[in-house]
């Protein structure tokens, strides 16, 4: 069960794929705060300026081959960037498996 603490508490764990880790100080995970995926991305951008552009294009939409999972659910099949995120949640950023 999630801890519904104040949304400014950085209790959401975001894990990153290897390709993005150099942009977050070579860490694998980051703890941030936010009440939605969009707010989590805002918090990531604040902590690591320029990171948003790796996840979203200029129109604000998630890049086509970038997937964000809230626990085991792809946010594309939830409410996209407006998907609510509770304190204590775990997010996973994964690139699509593409190519031939």
């Amino acid at each position, binding site marked *: 069960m999630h801890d519904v603490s104040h949304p400014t508490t950085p209790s959401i764990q975001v894990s990153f794929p290897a*390709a993005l880790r150099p942009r977050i100080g070579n860490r694998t995970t980051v703890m941030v705060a936010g009440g939605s995926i969009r707010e989590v991305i805002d918090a990531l951008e604040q902590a690591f300026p*320029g990171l948003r*552009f790796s996840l979203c294009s*200029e129109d604000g939409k998630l890049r086509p081959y970038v997937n964000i999972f809230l626990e085991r659910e792809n946010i594309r099949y939830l409410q996209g960037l407006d998907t609510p995120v509770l304190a204590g949640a775990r997010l996973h950023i994964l*690139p*699509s498996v*593409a190519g031939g």
Partner: protein
Amino acid sequence: MTDSTTYPQGTIVVLVGTKRGLFILSSQDRTRWDITPPTLRGSRIFHAILDQRNGQRLFAAENGDFFGSFLHYSDDFGVTWHKPQSGIQFPEGSGKKLTNIWVIEPGRANEPGVVYAGVDPASLWVSSDSGVTWELNAALANHPTRERWEPGAGGL
């Protein structure tokens, strides 16, 4: 060859962008070549160029399939890389999204800080501080005939 931050005068340097990073080839005699381990490893490098007007600044255009397009620069032949403070990104609401950075070109000798970049969708970007900040060239972006330009891969 190990990473190098300088090369002796007269060295021939060739930059090779690949889908797996940027290789720097160097030679004193154009017969035997040293090849560095790839820098920007794992990145798809469309273009790279060395600007020798102000020191030795190396520029590289990364166009990834997943996480977007970025310009990088290095002052030590790829040992360390930097991203612009204000990079090549279209303004929100412009309706344009950066697809690829195609070419980077240092300006004339009498404008040592000026660097140009051509991107897809077709537009020209200009830096006047050796790549630290970039601005869209509005004259081309807002040209009245733009909509009638024959579209190619980048909209030209």
